[in-house]
């Protein structure tokens, strides 16, 4: 079995093991932790294997494999990774393992919870390794649909409506995406070759400009809805607020990254002329999303809503950077995806811990938590500072790279938009500092909070797992950006 297919097969095996062998919570979480631990180890191994392979292999994708699936349509199960997919796989593995630790005490239907969570992860991993449009689309939908059960069964608040809204919006987007994919497929023979779903074969074809102009927005929007593009972001705040902690972590941390990844890998790569023609329109939308998300976050009273709108803002920034079409900005976009994935997962985990103890997420009612829960408080402050871009953490590296890249555009339109978007940093500082100050520092808001239990070992493990890469990216960004640079090059050449 090749090194990549295992990423899909291991989750499926874990799901089967859970289905047939797990009797109660203890067994379910044991199987999940072991399985996700293996997955995590595999992803670390993949990074090193990739670096070794890259030294001798100059193809765009390495570890490739290709098996015919549907002969009639020339559909293949074809896989391969470059630096971008490798780091995304690593991110998924980390967040997932942390998510399992955070869900240590899930009481209602534990077996089903872990089954849905891990089934979802097989879709995410499959998405990141696919190099065939159809296979990728299949994995994408597999990654989305378990969300309905995860939010609907284990969520809180208006969970049924949030779950329905999220599922319908994301599946509606993927329906639009399927039209875009079909459009690409039926134009893949424009140069006289056979029809194909293979991304890198299509990239050799010059799809007619008229077709690109039609199918680019469909493909872009299809992916960007899950990447929280304004005005299609509305599923995100309510969905994240209602979801259980581990699901919010995984969804905001990993699933929303599928959007940016798909835009980058499919929409822009396969339809470059369309991308350039439509870039201004989507650039305005994403810039608006950055500002809108940041201001909306200021106004929220519920901690999860704050974080959800902050995610909208930060992920719009990813799309904004992608639409800048230069190497620096793109490197920044990918680092931002990673950084936001880790940090938002930490935030959701912390909010979940605070909520699990105090049973409220309202900023007004919380205060002075730091004194009672020093570990959680300290990590909360660190996360907040990393989130608003303090040097030394991943957030700074990501945003700095994006803005430097964005400013490389000499024309007025891009400059002004960049300046507007940069100002969102200030707004971010406002809501992060206010939130941290109010709930962590400040006077103790409620005497009952004095007896709150301290952080447990599994909570600490989950948080530290996420914190380590945040610091690593912050302190040693060069290795990462060097690794990404080579992989970005072929995608960039397509556009210029």
């Amino acid at each position, binding site marked *: 079995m090749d090194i990549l297919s295992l990423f899909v097969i291991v989750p499926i095996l874990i799901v089967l093991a859970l289905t047939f062998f797990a009797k109660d919570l203890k067994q379910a979480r044991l199987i999940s932790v072991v399985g996700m631990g293996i997955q995590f180890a595999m992803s670390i191994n993949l990074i090193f294997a990739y670096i070794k392979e890259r030294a001798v292999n100059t193809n765009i994708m390495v570890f490739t494999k290709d098996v015919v*699936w549907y002969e*009639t349509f020339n559909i293949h199960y074809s896989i391969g990774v470059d630096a971008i997919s490798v780091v995304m796989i690593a991110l998924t593995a980390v967040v997932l393992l942390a998510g399992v630790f955070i869900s240590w005490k899930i009481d209602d239907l534990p077996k089903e919870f872990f089954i849905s969570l891990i089934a979802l992860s097989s879709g995410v991993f499959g998405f990141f390794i696919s190099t065939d449009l159809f296979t990728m689309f299949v994995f994408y939908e597999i990654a989305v649909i378990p969300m*309905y059960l995860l939010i609907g069964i284990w969520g809180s608040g208006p969970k*049924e409506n949030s779950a*329905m809204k999220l599922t319908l919006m994301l599946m509606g987007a993927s329906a639009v995406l*399927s039209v875009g994919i*079909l459009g690409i*497929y039926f134009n893949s023979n424009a140069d006289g070759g056979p029809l194909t779903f293979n991304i890198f074969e299509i990239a050799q074809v010059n799809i007619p400009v008229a077709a690109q102009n039609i199918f680019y927005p469909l493909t872009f929007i299809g992916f960007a809805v899950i990447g929280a593009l304004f005005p299609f972001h509305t599923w995100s705040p309510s969905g994240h607020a209602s979801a259980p902690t581990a699901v919010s972590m995984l969804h905001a941390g990993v699933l929303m990254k599928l959007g940016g990844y798909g835009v980058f890998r499919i929409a822009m790569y396969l339809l470059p002329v369309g991308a350039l023609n439509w870039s201004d329109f989507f650039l305005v939308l994403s810039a608006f999303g950055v500002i809108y998300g940041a201001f909306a976050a200021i106004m929220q009273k519920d901690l999860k809503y704050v974080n959800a709108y902050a995610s909208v803002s930060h992920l719009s920034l990813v799309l904004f950077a992608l639409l800048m079409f230069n190497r620096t900005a793109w490197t920044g976009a990918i680092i931002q995806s990673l950084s936001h994935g880790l940090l938002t997962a930490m935030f959701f985990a912390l909010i979940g811990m605070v909520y699990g103890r105090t049973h409220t997420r309202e900023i007004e009612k919380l205060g002075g938590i730091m004194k009672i829960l020093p570990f959680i408080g300290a990590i909360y402050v660190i996360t907040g500072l990393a989130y608003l871009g303090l040097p030394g953490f991943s957030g700074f590296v990501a945003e700095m790279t994006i803005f430097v890249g964005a400013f490389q555009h000499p024309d007025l339109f891009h400059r002004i938009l960049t300046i507007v978007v940069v100002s969102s940093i200030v707004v971010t500082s406002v809501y992060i500092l206010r939130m941290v100050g109010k709930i962590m520092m400040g006077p103790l808001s409620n005497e009952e909070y004095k007896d709150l239990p301290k952080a447990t070992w599994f909570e600490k493990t989950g948080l530290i797992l996420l914190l380590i890469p945040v610091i690593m990216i912050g302190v040693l960004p060069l290795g990462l950006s060097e690794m990404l640079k080579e992989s970005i090059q072929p995608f960039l050449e397509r556009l210029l």
Partner: protein
Amino acid sequence: MNLESFLLMRSEIGLLAILLLLIILEIFSNKKQKAAVIPFALILLAINTVLGFLPLESGELFGGMFRTNALLYFFKTTLSLGVLILLLQSADWLKEKVVDENKATEFFILIISSLLGTYFMISAGDFLMFYIGLELTTLPVAALVAYDTYKRISAEGAVKYILSSALASGAALFGISLLYATTGTIYFESMAEILASSNLAILGFIFFFSGLAFKISLAPFHFWTADVYEGAPINVASYLSVISKGAAVVILMILLFTVFKPLMPVWNKIIYIVIIATMFIGNLFAIRQQNLKRFLAYSSIAQAGFILLGLMSVDQLGTTTIVYFVAVYIFSNLGAFGVVQAVSSASDKENINDYEGLYRTNPKLSLLMMLALFSLAGIPPLAGFFGKFFLYTAAASQGYYILVFIAVVNATISLYYYLLVVRAMFLRQSDQAIPYFKSPFYMRLGLILAAIGILVAGVYSPLYDYIFSISNTFLN
């Protein structure tokens, strides 16, 4: 014509033999022995289905009235498998409710003769044979709809069904006579050569099409569907929605792609409008349904709209995809109807509200229901996803992107109401949840077969590739 050439009718002869055996058994058995009818009939049909996997040559009989080829033969076997699953699912219902009333054999005889009718219908080589097949398919079902004679709603459904199908048959027959008037032949092959786009031919086609549209319950000929499904016993509704509809779709496809090919510019536009209307009407009405039978009725109307997308591509791709989708749809719908049947025979409950909390009491059934509904909605990796995606592909291959777009919007709407059932089963908790029950053996077997079909038919790509390889046989 020698004796060997009769073997071309092997599947029909097999069914006929089963029918005769059942009639003999009915006459010569006493009341006690009748309990053995159920396993006996099931085993016979199973043997006939398995025999269907043996290869058969193409050919014609009776001067071209009857014809068969690999694709038709494959489709017949699929239908036979579908009926087998359906009978497995209804075996226990029959044992409980019907053996006492001495009616089990009738049920089998009626349903198998209807199946025989579909065989003749899709194998027809001229309009006479087609019409006989159509009637043989329809009339036994009318009796079956009224099977619960003591229920008023069942009788009402039967009357509605028989009246509307009589009207439909009449319309189809009138259309055929107009077509005969323009071409002077009722043989498909010679009509395909002579038929030209004239007003009379178009009028004949429209009448003929509306007759078939009744059977497939396409808008605006769908009005009977919900009432009849609601009145009929669940397994009969299931038969109507999968076997009878599937066969009618395939014969419609065959006729459109061969006989009516000269009229393609006309029927293309008609189908285009009918697809949109059928999908929207089916979906929008399904949202408001509480009774699961009515719910599945509207869902199957919407599905019929999807199937017709394949008709937009008049080539091997369209043919393959329609046959494949119908096969997949048979499994998915039988899964959903099977669960409704199981729950209904255990607790007499048929409303979506009654399913609240079902997962906590009957996890396996709820899981199968979810799989079946997700397959109908087109969620990977279930078979329905592949069927739907390939239908979109077929339509898009001819450049009908707007139609595909409307279809995917409808797929999203349909996901909403399928999720409503999932919501009731999984998300809700209820004190009055249907208590745990263990389905009898036959029912479980029928459900497992449907589940295997849902899980395997999509991911296992050789199935589609096989249909593709045989589907050029009838286009030439």
